[in-house]
């Protein structure tokens, strides 16, 4: 009697019901990832002729191979896309953070006319979809390029002194990294300013006033006091923005067309899945390496960032 009783308490302590519900959800949640993971290590024949779960059912007779990776990496432009994605994502993370930090600092510690008004506008802009600005911004860049192109064509003497300038390849920004940075920075700005200002509001004003009394300029206070103290908020927004840009398709597709990024290359691979599902799977897995490492390595900061301000 007492034994069954203690077993029942143990069972209750183990939280069987909750654990089972959780287990079921976990299994459901990992199925897509698992399918990708398994398929990426199968041979072409097997990927075509049997489902990935059969490989899990008989793991020892399965023909595991790394071939999909070497094939996907050498043939499908994934490596240049990797470089291109990093070249878009790194500045598109650093630049908006820097701009937003300056603005958040201004909005938090300095007084000026219309402060509340400007900030309300920033809040309102957080929800504007990027599609709203996309076409005119693209037209703006194209217009700028045709102006710049004409200038280089008509007065090349203005540019000849610049190293690496080549009149056969005139400077332009449409389709280049620069336009991706500008667009990503602009679209990220409202949320970034909001999150950073929320954080800076919690910093001790007395410290900043003391520094003022000691004769530090606002510019010095920004770099020497506020930035070091804001590292947690900067880090959490950096992770958020980096993942966002790394995984973005739309902006890269429209503005950085000259350097196909990973999502773009992956989507075109998906269109050619007749060459083998294992290639698509290996390619997808390759695109996931950086975001997953960043994500798991810095999960704590990321979660903190999410809980501090959450609209995108």
């Amino acid at each position: 009697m007492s034994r069954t009783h203690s077993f029942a308490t143990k069972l209750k302590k183990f939280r069987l019901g909750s654990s089972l519900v959780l287990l079921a959800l976990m299994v459901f949640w990992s199925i897509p990832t698992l399918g990708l993971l398994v398929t990426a290590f199968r041979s072409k024949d097997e990927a075509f002729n049997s489902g990935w779960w059969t490989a899990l059912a008989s793991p020892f007779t399965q023909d595991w191979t790394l071939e999909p990776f070497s094939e996907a990496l050498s043939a499908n432009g994934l490596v240049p896309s990797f470089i291109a994605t990093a070249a878009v994502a790194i500045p598109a993370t650093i630049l908006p953070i820097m701009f937003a930090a300056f603005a958040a600092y201004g909005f938090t510690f300095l007084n000026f006319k219309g402060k509340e008004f400007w900030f309300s506008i920033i809040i309102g802009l957080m929800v504007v979809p990027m599609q709203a600005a996309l076409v005119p911004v693209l037209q703006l860049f194209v217009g700028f390029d045709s102006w710049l192109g004409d200038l280089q064509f008509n007065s090349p003497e203005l540019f000849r002194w610049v190293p690496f300038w080549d009149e056969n390849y005139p400077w332009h920004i449409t389709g280049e990294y620069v336009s991706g940075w500008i667009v990503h920075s602009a679209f990220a700005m409202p949320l970034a300013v909001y999150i950073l200002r929320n954080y800076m509001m919690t910093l001790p004003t007395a410290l900043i006033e003391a520094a003022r009394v000691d004769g530090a300029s606002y510019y010095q206070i920004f770099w020497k006091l506020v930035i070091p103290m804001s590292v947690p908020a900067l880090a959490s927004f950096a992770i958020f923005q980096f993942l966002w840009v790394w995984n973005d398709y739309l902006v890269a597709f429209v503005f950085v067309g000259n350097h196909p990024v990973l999502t773009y290359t992956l989507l075109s691979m998906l269109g050619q899945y007749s060459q083998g599902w294992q290639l698509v799977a290996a390619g997808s897995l390759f695109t996931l390496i950086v975001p997953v490492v960043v994500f798991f390595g810095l999960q704590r900061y990321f979660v903190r960032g999410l809980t501090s301000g959450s609209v995108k």
Partner: protein
Amino acid sequence: MDEQQDLSTYLPDLGFALTSIVLGVLASIFLYWLLNFLVNLLPRRAASALQPYAFIAPVLALVGGFLVWPTIQTMYLSFTTTSQDTGEQTFTGFDNFASLFGDPDFITTLSNNLLWILVVPLASVVLGLLIATVSNNVGPIREKVAKSIIFLPMAISFVAASTMWRFLYHYDAGNTQIGLLNAVVTSLGGDAVPWLQVTNFKLNDLLLMVIVIWLNTGFAMVLLSAAIKAVPEETVEAASIDGATGRQTFFKIVLPQIRATAVSVFITVLIAVMKIFDVVYAMTGGNYETNVLGVAFIKNYFEFGDTGKASAIVVLLMLAIIPIMIYQVRSYRKQEELR
């Protein structure tokens, strides 16, 4: 040897990327330094009046030039038609809107968006809440593992997620089914189904929504879990002393205290879903009656070259978002009064 050659072919790419990064960052730092320097050249009083703008002006310029002004231009463009031959813009009033609403396909697109809005945010919040609550009951290790697995999709791009879900939804005309869903159906004796083409009961649309719910639930879970852990222990204990059941405690005590978080998660997912693009574009390209505004916009602009109609679609999207915008600004003002 081969590999080294391969890598060296990427060096120009890498070099260009690195130079761009360094130049871009240096230029921006220089911009702020210059602004500050210029402001400080001014007489003292003018300098202190202009100082704040040295910090916020670049952001206002960036947001004004690349967000606000283009949005206004889009509104204007929605009332114009651009000639395909001459590129000339003519003001055509509500023509674009009229032709959109006269097109039954566009009505399907609109109703699809509505369905997305009705299903995905609510499902994400409810599932996130379920997981947050249940994982709060088990020990810390199980909680951590479960949360990591469910949160992981947050790191995955929509495009990669689409490839993953292809392995579930794939349909083969032949006998072997390598898509999991069809394998299950055929092993139960049924016929394989081309899932993404089944328009009955909007099934294909719903299957696309499952992907986005899968991606968003982790986000909802993390925020709601933090909110649940912040609920004061005393309130829950008091309820159980008063003889409340688990369910009563949850609905009457816990839920009201996490309402604000639930609403903000709901709104965040709602906005994301309104402009949903990648998943639909990658899975069906908007075909088989799964089109949404985000995809219709891109197709009208890039495939059909119809700037006016593309802009009109975005304007409709913005009209739907305005109430949310007003809500955001209002709740910010309220929050500010409490500080």
